[in-house]
């Protein structure tokens, strides 16, 4: 079967975020960008399924500015077979991304779509669920295990109280959580090979999708800062202060 994975270019998770002085967003100039960590897990899972002989082809798709090609090349170096970039300078929101991915999926007809459960920039946690709805597919969100059964898949999901297992018919959509796998590092030979793999660049207009944002960001601010408090000398002082000063314990 064919798998499609979505990969987003985001500010690297190790970068300390700074809000712009004019409150229009966060600083992205001269900042390191990487593949969204949850998407790396999606690519890794797709590659493992291919290595296990369950998958014939992996297509990595990214959406956004031209530099997103780098993110696709990373996926190709990890083991994806070819890439598609939907290139636009418009700020793509989850609904627009879901519609663009649906248009690609209508053409490519994969049996399984793997996406990260959320991107670590806007933290929306929406695109996978929206895409599944638009496709009228079943979804296995926040996956910590995927098992391919006869004509479907079983997904173990990380839910608030513990774990939940669901069975889905194929085609299906899965979003990845942290404990699904540990993504590999691409080897230098594979990085070189990835440069020769096919990467098609198209536009939202080619797919006939209106990507006009529905939400307007009015401002972006720093959260209120917590101040460091005091150091206490010992446990007796700590308990005394919690009881009599902060009054948070009986």
């Amino acid at each position, binding site marked *: 079967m064919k798998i499609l994975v979505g990969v987003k270019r985001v500010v690297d998770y190790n970068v300390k975020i700074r809000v712009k002085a004019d409150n229009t967003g966060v600083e992205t100039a001269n900042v390191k960008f990487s593949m969204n960590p949850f998407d790396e897990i999606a690519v890794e899972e797709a590659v493992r399924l291919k290595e296990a002989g369950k998958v014939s082809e992996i297509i990595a798709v990214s959406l956004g500015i031209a530099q997103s090609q780098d993110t696709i090349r990373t996926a190709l170096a990890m083991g994806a077979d070819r890439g598609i970039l939907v290139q636009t300078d418009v700020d793509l929101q989850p609904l627009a991304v879901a519609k663009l991915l649906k248009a690609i999926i209508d053409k490519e007809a994969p049996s399984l779509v793997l996406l990260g459960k959320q991107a670590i920039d806007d933290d929306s946690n929406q695109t996978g669920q929206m895409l599944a709805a638009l496709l009228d597919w079943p979804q296995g969100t926040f996956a910590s295990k995927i098992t391919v059964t006869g004509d479907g898949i079983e997904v173990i999901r990380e839910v608030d109280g513990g774990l*939940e*297992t669901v069975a889905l018919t194929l085609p299906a959509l899965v979003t990845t959580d942290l404990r699904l796998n540990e993504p590999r590092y691409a080897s230098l030979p594979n990085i070189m090979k990835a440069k020769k793999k096919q990467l098609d660049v198209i536009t939202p207009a080619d797919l006939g999708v209106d990507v006009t944002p529905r939400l307007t960001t009015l401002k972006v601010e720093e959260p209120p800062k*917590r101040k460091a408090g005091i150091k206490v000398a010992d446990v007796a002082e700590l308990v005394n202060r919690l009881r009599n000063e902060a009054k948070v*314990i009986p």
Partner: protein
Amino acid sequence: MSLLVIAEVNGGALKSATLNTVAAAQAIAQTTGTDIHILVADENAGSIAAAAQAIPGIAKVLVADSAAFAHGLAEPVAALVVSLAGGYSHILAPSTTFGKNILPRVAALLDVAQISDIVKVIAPDTFVRPIYAGNALATVQSADSVKVITVRGTGFDAVPADGGSAAVETVAIPALPTKSKFVSQQLAKSERPELTAAKIIISGGRGMGSGENFHLIETVADKLGAAVGASRAAVDSGFVSNDLQVGQTGKIVAPNLYVAVGISGAIQHLAGMSGSKVIVAINKDEEAPIFQVADYGLVGDLFQVLPQLSQELDKH
């Protein structure tokens, strides 16, 4: 146009996150002056409907009673919500794994944006939500006719659970998708309060050294009626299960008292607990970043401090 809150139900009970979501709905309704309805979808939904009826300020409880909703699967619940969406200006659900699973489906089927994790209502179309793991707060305005919203519980104080007497109405159930099936669940059982509802939380990090050492934390937790949490490092080291994880990718908590033991204070952990009223850090490394957000810091070896703390609490 009324507001619709999707109640989170689990194991035949109304989850407390629903009460925080109603509080957010009330913050919107204050401006719009419209009614709040609450949807209860479950198998044998009667007792939960009664619990929802008792929430003050609810005008109507909509009940959809079917085995198809027993496990809160996204596909059937979203189809139900979409079938009811016509009369509503806002559709809200808790920002839990339940709500996050369902509401984006609802939004996509209605062809509207979804607004995730709101922590504040500015106007009926304008909300504040954290981005970049809580390192920035964005104020966003929706241009859509229906606002589909998930509510971060720590942003809104829960409304009372009783005192109301809403009307109850049984709703028609539309044709439901059947492509997904519930197989099983493994829920962690605990006598302690749930992390997201606890007034006091004691969390352990990598410094705990092993899962067995968590009994030191549990002893203190039980003396305070506290919930037990953990950092991602402790979960990834296999000390405790993932449902205890506090942080950006785990649970977001805001108790009255948060005690971080052997936790260095990675950004991802701080994002999950920095809304707590009082933070205590216990760590042997006095340079640990956790001390920069702690109201009370104690530099010391947790293997000595925790037993002392347990004894000191007995003294009262």
